[in-house]
């Protein structure tokens, strides 16, 4: 079992990112479960997703003991809580919320054999604890063996739950120490405390990380990595910014052709694909309805009736619902369905879309249809 896990707050800005990640997860048919951990206060409502399981966890930014505002605290704390409370066993694919799937990651890992994306930016020096340089001399006070060599890795990480459980608390603690100890330095609090703390915690827990081509930046020229991270702006061949996650608020039109072929264009094409489907189908944009296994179809006096496993009664469909039901074959999405019905009944698709969507949702809640990503 592979758990694809990402951590967010309930912030509105996280909505479109989480939705896009969920779409891409379903689109590539990533095996396993998608889990969104949400650092959330006691009385805030949890966001809802169709496929992602949402789990609320204690908020750690601002840090409850130091007051330091640093969102990555939430990531380590959420994972620690989720792994501990739910007793998760399996492979964890740990991703950032600002990434999308381009291809599935199907290979599971064993305990003690984590795989992760290379991170060349880990400070390396001949001196200082963990070979991080003299700036990190303070770690002498907080670490038992400073001669260890931390792996130069970052997210996405593929790690067994038992390994992540061993290092998560230390990761969170080291992040706190790194941020607190650098607070009054010339460079201010360490921005990369998250990744450096993870690397040290992995080394201390004796969990080797093999470098794997799991993720690539959308600014990269070439990559076949299955996951794309869109933290940095995507530029055209002439160096003009075509798209920037920092200012994007969700579902404006984008132009993939403005970017040279590569990860950036792949990402923009995915974003545009989802945007277009979303515009015509809302929450059902990327789902393909198919009859649930065991549902039997019959006709009584020219009316279509459904026998649904677990229901004592039969479900009678009127002519419109029957026309929709007949097209729910697992191959058509909502947009295709609407277009076909609009042609058949000589109506505008925009007029029909809401009715079609409502019928599909009712058939799903009645147990007649499954909605699958695709």
């Amino acid at each position, binding site marked *: 079992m592979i758990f694809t896990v990402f951590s967010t707050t309930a912030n509105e800005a996280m909505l479109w990112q989480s939705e896009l990640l969920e779409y891409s997860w379903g689109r590539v048919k990533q095996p396993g479960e998608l889990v969104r951990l949400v650092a959330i*206060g*006691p*009385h805030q409502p949890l966001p809802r997703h169709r496929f992602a399981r949402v789990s609320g966890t*204690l*908020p750690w930014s*601002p*840090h*409850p*003991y*130091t*007051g330091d505002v640093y969102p990555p605290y939430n990531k380590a*704390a959420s994972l*620690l*809580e989720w792994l*501990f*409370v*739910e*007793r*998760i066993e399996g492979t964890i694919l740990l991703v950032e919320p600002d990434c999308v799937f381009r291809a599935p990651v199907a290979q599971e890992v064993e305990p003690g054999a984590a795989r992760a994306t290379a991170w060349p930016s880990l400070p390396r020096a001949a001196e200082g604890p963990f070979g991080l340089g003299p700036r990190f001399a303070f770690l002498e*006070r*907080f670490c*038992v*063996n400073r001669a260890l060599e931390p792996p130069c890795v970052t997210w996405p990480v593929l790690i067994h739950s038992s390994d992540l*459980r*061993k*290092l998560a*608390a*230390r990761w*969170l*603690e080291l992040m*706190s*120490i790194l941020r*607190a*100890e650098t607070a009054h330095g010339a460079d201010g609090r360490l921005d990369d405390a998250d990744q450096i703390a993870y690397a040290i*915690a992995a080394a*201390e*827990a*004796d969990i080797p990380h093999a470098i794997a081509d799991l993720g690539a930046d959308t600014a990269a020229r070439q990559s076949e990595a299955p996951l794309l991270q869109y933290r940095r702006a995507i530029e055209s061949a002439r160096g003009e910014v075509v798209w920037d996650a920092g200012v994007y608020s969700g579902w404006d039109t984008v132009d993939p052709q403005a970017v040279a072929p590569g990860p950036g264009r792949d990402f923009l094409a995915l974003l545009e694909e989802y945007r277009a489907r979303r515009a015509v189908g809302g929450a059902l944009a990327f789902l393909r309805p198919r009859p649930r296994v065991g549902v039997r179809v019959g006709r009584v006096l020219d009316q279509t009736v459904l026998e649904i496993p*677990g229901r004592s009664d039969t479900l009678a469909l009127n002519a419109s619902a029957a026309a929709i039901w007949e097209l729910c074959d697992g191959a058509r999405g909502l947009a295709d369905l609407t277009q076909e019905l609009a042609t058949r009944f000589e109506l505008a698709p925009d007029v029909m879309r809401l009715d079609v969507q409502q019928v599909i949702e009712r058939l799903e*809640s009645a147990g007649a249809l499954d909605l699958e990503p695709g």
Partner: protein
Amino acid sequence: MSAGREIRLRIQLAEGHSCEATLNENAVELRTLYAALAMPTRANELIQLPLDGGKSACSFRAAQLVSIVSEPPVVVEASTVEAADHLTPRQEAAVRSRRARYLVIDDFLCPLEHQDMLALATASEKNFEAGTVDGDQPEHRQNLVIPTFGDSAHARLIQNRVLVWYPLLAKALGVDVVALSMVEAQLTAARSRQFYKLHSDVGPDCPRELSCIYYMHRQPRGFVGGELRLYDCVEEEGQSRPADTFEVVDPVSNRLVVFPSGEFHEAVPVRCPSGDFADSRFAITIWLHRAATPDPEACFGWGHFRCGVVAPQLARADGAARTAGRTR
């Protein structure tokens, strides 16, 4: 309420019996099942579970229930169990029993930290002295302690790690995060025939909130016994007393056991055939003390963590929120 997931259950019963059932996560039977597991007071109730889509049923007495394995995992909130406790009519009882509340964290420290901590304990034989309890009752407690351990770097290391876990532990145990006045640490060793009889860690002048015991021993283990017993609790007219029933926690090396300090517990006698001090059952006990008055400047562990007040995001809507409101 949503349609709910289907939960596959493997139910272990006494004397090695078991059955498998699938229930909707919103099903009353599911809550009843977990309530029966959590509440010894329901021991005599009959539980009936539908099997094979309701074509057959499995019936057993709640007392026979040993454990439930669920797929996907079912996380039961205390309030859900309490709600289920009222699903079946029963007499209001002035006496209420509940299971011991505790959590176990294995691999608590990383391997090097654990080895370092154990090396300190085994090399410190001359620094240990007899542990005491109020009233000097040797028949109640016989083990060895290092009274000054709390001032050491080793103590700060484990204190700091416990504080990282503290909000999560409080949430999982269903207790409030409180403002702390002290994080007390004690290193103990239990040699042959040493023990600590049934007790709780709180007293009139001892506002301990949470007790954490971190176990260490060399490999292979050179002692037998030394288990921690956590007693179920009987609450009657505002008073608590230990029940006759208890859970046993094995003192596995690098394991942390956490429980509210008011829980009744006991360390059973150790038997150490070699008589070698290094074969003792070592433990570091950490107690988190509740502050009578919040202090925003109070620092603990390595000195970064100000735990003398409760952060607003960890405060509950009731008592703890008011504490936070007063101090920030």
